[in-house]
C-alpha cells in the first residue's frame, strides 16, 4: 500500500534506503566481478580512486555530474507535473544544436561577454521547443507523452545527422563535425580558471557549466516549491482534477512544465558543445538524457537529491571508465552492467527493500518504546 512509505522517518526514506539500494547493486556487481576472476574490492577501489582520487578523475566525475544534473532536473520537473519525459536525450541533442548554431553564426560578431548568456538561452530555447511539440500533443491532442518524447529522440537524432552530414559539416572533412568555434566562444575549463588563479590542475572537460547547473538546481527548487507556477505544476501532477477545481488549466501547465524540462535538458548542449567540444558534432548526448531518468528517480525528484544522485552517476561513469581501463578483463560492457544494476536497484526496485526496512524499523521502535515503558 502506498501510504506505507510515509510510516518511515524521512531520513530512512531518502537517506538510508537509497544507500542500501546502491549497496545491494554493488554487492551483485561484486559477485559478477568475482565470477570473472577479479577482486571486487580492488574494483571498487579502482572505481573510487579513479573517480575521486585525483584531480583529473574528479574533473571528469564533475563533468558527468553536470550533465546528469541537467537531465535529472529535466525529468524531475516534468515528473512533478505527472509527466514522464523520456525525451531528455533528444532535447539535449537539439539544445546542443541551438547553442552550436548560435555560436557558428555569432561567435565572431557578438561580444564574448554576451556569448555565454545568449548561448544558454539558445540551448534552452531549442531544447524547450523540442519538448514543446510532444507537450502540445499530450496537452491538446492526448497523445501519450512517453511515446511522443521517445519518438522525438529518434527524430532529433535523424535531424542532427542530416544537418551535420549535409549542412553544417566543415567542408573537406571526413567526420561530420562543424568548424571549431572561435576561442572567445569557449567556456573556460576548470583547469584554465585554476591556472588563472595560479593553481595547476590536470586537464579535464569540467567547465563553468557546472556553476550554471548549480544555479538551475536552486532555481528549480524555488520554482517548484516557492512559486504559484510550481504550485500549479505540482497540483496537476498530484491530482489533475483538484487542479481543474482550483482553476489551473492542466494543458497550459503541461506546456509550461515540459518547456522548462526541455530547456533544462537542452543545457546539456551548453556543457557539451560550448564547454567541451567547441564544435557541433554527433552523439554527444551519450545517453545522459536516459540516465537522467534514473538520476531523478533516485534523487526523489528533488534538486538536492538529484545533485547527490548525479554525483553518484558521475562516479559510476568516470570510475567505470577507469575500471575498464585498468582491468582488461572488465570490459566496458561489464561497466554498463554495473551502472545498470545501480539503476535497477535504485530505480525500478527502489521500493523493494522498503517492506523489510519498515519491518526492521517497526521492530526496533517497538522494542525501544516498550523498553521505555519498562523503565518508566
Amino acid at each position, binding site marked *: *500500500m502506498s*501510504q*506505507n512509505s*510515509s*510510516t*518511515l*522517518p524521512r531520513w530512512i526514506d531518502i537517506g538510508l534506503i537509497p544507500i542500501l539500494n546502491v549497496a545491494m547493486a554493488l554487492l551483485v556487481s561484486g559477485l559478477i566481478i568475482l565470477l570473472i576472476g577479479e577482486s571486487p574490492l580492488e574494483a571498487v577501489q579502482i572505481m573510487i580512486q579513479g573517480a575521486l582520487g585525483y584531480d583529473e578523475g574528479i574533473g571528469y566525475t564533475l563533468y558527468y555530474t553536470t550533465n546528469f544534473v541537467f537531465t535529472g532536473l529535466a525529468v524531475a520537473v516534468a515528473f512533478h507535473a505527472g509527466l514522464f519525459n523520456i525525451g531528455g536525450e533528444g532535447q539535449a541533442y537539439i539544445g546542443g544544436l541551438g547553442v552550436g548554431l548560435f555560436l557558428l553564426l555569432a561567435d565572431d560578431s557578438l561580444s564574448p561577454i554576451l556569448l555565454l548568456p545568449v548561448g544558454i538561452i539558445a540551448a534552452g530555447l531549442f531544447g524547450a521547443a523540442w519538448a514543446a511539440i510532444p507537450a502540445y500533443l499530450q496537452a491538446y491532442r492526448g497523445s501519450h507523452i512517453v511515446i511522443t518524447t521517445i519518438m522525438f529522440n529518434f527524430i532529433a537524432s535523424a535531424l542532427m545527422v542530416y544537418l551535420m552530414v549535409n549542412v553544417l559539416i566543415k567542408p573537406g572533412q571526413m567526420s561530420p563535425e562543424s568548424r571549431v568555434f572561435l576561442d572567445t566562444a569557449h567556456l573556460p575549463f576548470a583547469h584554465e580558471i585554476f591556472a588563472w588563479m595560479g593553481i595547476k590542475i590536470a586537464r579535464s572537460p569540467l567547465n563553468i557549466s557546472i556553476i550554471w547547473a548549480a544555479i538551475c538546481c536552486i532555481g528549480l527548487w*524555488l520554482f517548484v516549491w*516557492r*512559486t*504559484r507556477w510550481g*504550485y*500549479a505544476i*505540482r*497540483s496537476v501532477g*498530484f*491530482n489533475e*482534477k*483538484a*487542479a*481543474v*477545481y*482550483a*482553476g*489551473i488549466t492542466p494543458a497550459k501547465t503541461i506546456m509550461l512544465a515540459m518547456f522548462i524540462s526541455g530547456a533544462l535538458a537542452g543545457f546539456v548542449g551548453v556543457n557539451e558543445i560550448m564547454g567541451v567540444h567547441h564544435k557541433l558534432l554527433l552523439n554527444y548526448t551519450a545517453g545522459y538524457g536516459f540516465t537522467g531518468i534514473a538520476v531523478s528517480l533516485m534523487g526523489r525528484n528533488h534538486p538536492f537529491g538529484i545533485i547527490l544522485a548525479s554525483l553518484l552517476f558521475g562516479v559510476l561513469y568516470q570510475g567505470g571508465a577507469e575500471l575498464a581501463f585498468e582491468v582488461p578483463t572488465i570490459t566496458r560492457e561489464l561497466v554498463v552492467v554495473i551502472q545498470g544494476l545501480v539503476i535497477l536497484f535504485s530505480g525500478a526496485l527502489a521500493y523493494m527493500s522498503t517492506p523489510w526496512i519498515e519491518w526492521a524499523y*517497526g521492530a526496533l*521502535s*517497538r522494542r525501544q518504546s516498550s523498553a521505555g515503558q519498562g523503565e518508566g
Partner: protein
Amino acid sequence: MTGTMENDGKKRGPGDENSPAASPSAIKLTDISKSFGPVRANDSVNMEIHAGTIHGIIGENGAGKSTLMSILYGFYEADRGTIEVDGKTVKITSSQAAISVGIGMVHQHFMLIDTFTVLENIILGAETSALLVAGLEEARVKLQALEDEYGLNVDLNVLTGDLPVGEQQRVEILKALYRDARILILDEPTGVLTPQETAQLFKILKALNREGVTIVLITHKLKEIMTITDNVSVMRAGQMVAHRKTANTSAEELAELMVGRKIINEIEKSTGQRGQPALKVEGLTVKSAGAVPLIDDLSFEVCAGEIVGIAGVSGNGQSELLEVLSGIRPFDTGKIFLNGRDVSPQHLCDPKEVRGLKIAHVPEDRHRLGMVTNFSAQESSILGYQDAAVYNSGPFLDLPTINRECRRLMEGFDVRPRLPEIRSANMSGGNQQKLILAREIDKGPEVLLVGQPTRGVDIGAIEFIHGQLIELRKQGCAVLMVSVELDEVMKLSDRILVMFDGRIVAEVAGNKADEKMLGLMMANAHSQLAQAETNA
C-alpha cells in the same frame, strides 16, 4: 455452510456485563496493536464476535475500524496480539489466508471489473479449473445453489458495469459466499445506497444471518447499528471503548461513546432571513454521449440566506450540476444568473473566474477535487486561491503569510492538529473537510456550492460543519447543498429539490419532508404512487 451453532456447553469466562454469553466466538481478537510510524491505529484491541450474530463496529473516521478489519482480512499484519477464528489461533498474512479460514469481505469500494460478467467477476481469483469454460459451469451450479439458499438474486450473465450499485454489492456478497465465507465483513456498505436499497441489503443480511453466517458491519451510522445488529463494539482513537448488546443501549449512548462527549444533535434552525434570489439557473442542459442528457433543462433558484438541498441517488446529475456551477464543466444550453446578472459567459469552464464572482465551492469528493492529499495542509489551504495577491509576493508564494493564514483558518474552524505543515493526507476526513470549508467560507462568498458536506466525516465534525452552514445562511449567503444523507438534507435545507435523471422531479419544504417520501421521490416513484393512490 454450518447452521446456527447450539451452545456447546463450554462456559465462557467472566466477561463484562454486556457481553452475551450465548454462542461460541467466531472471531476473538486479543490485544491487537498496529502502529503506522508514531500513529497508533489500533491500541490493544480486544473483541469477541459470536458465531451467528450480526455484530456492529462503530466509530468515527480514523478511530481504527478499517485498520482493524484490514488486519483481520490480511492487508496489514498486527504488530502484536492474536487472532482466533472458531477458537483456533490463526495467522492471517494475506487475504487468501483470511478466505481460507472463512472470512469474506465486502469493501466500501467494490473490487469488481466492470467489463466482466457477474459470473466472471465472482470466480476471478478462485478459478477451479485450468480450463475456464469447465470452471465457469461448475461455478454457475454452485452459485445458483447459493442464490436460491439466500435469496440473492443476481443475473450471472450480465456485465457487472451495467448493474445498479445495490446489485453490484450483492455480487460482492456472492463473491465472498462463493469462497465459503462464514464470517462476512461489510465495510460501510450503505454509503452508496438509497434508503430502499439499504433496506433490501439489510433483508439479505438478516437472511444470511438466519442461515448461520456471522456478519460484521462496520459503519459510522448509528441508525443502522440500532436497526440490524445484535451486538455493537465502539472504537475511539484506536481503542475499543465499549461492547454493548444493541438491545441494551441507545443511539445517544453510542454517539457519546464514539465521540467521548455529549452530542447535541438538534440544530437551532431559526427561520432565516430569506433575501433576493442570489443564484438562478434557467434551462440548464448538459448533454452526454448517450441519449439521456446528464442535466436536462434544469431551472431553479437559491436565495440569499437560504439553504437549498438537492437530494437524489448518486449519479442523477447532482455532481455534474455542481461542476457546471463551479465552472469545472462546460454546459450546452441554459443561463446562469448571479444576483440578477447573467453570468453565463463567465461560466464557460473557468473555475478561476467563478471564484472571482464570489461563488465558493466545497466539492463532493475532497480527495479528488477539494485538496491535494500530497500537499501540506497550508498548500491545500490556498487551493483555488493560489494566484491571489495576498498569498504571493512578486514571483514567489508568500509562505509566511500562507502559514499564518492557514493557522488562522485552522483555529477558526477547529482543524486538528493545528499544523499547517502536516501532509493533507495525514489529517482525518473531518479535519480535511473543515479545512476546505474554512478555505471557501473565509473568502466571504455570496453563493456557496457544497457537495456531500459531511461524507466520511465523524460525528463531532458533522455537528460543527452543520453549524457553520447554518451560520453562513444567517449571514445571507445562498447555499446550494448536494447530499446523499437524507437526514442532513432534511435537517439543514429550507427547500429540498430531488433530482432524477438530470431533472428536478420534486420540490418539498425542508420541514415537510420525511425519509420515505424523499426515498420514493429519489426513485422517481412518487408520482406513480400518487397516481396509483388517486386511481384506487
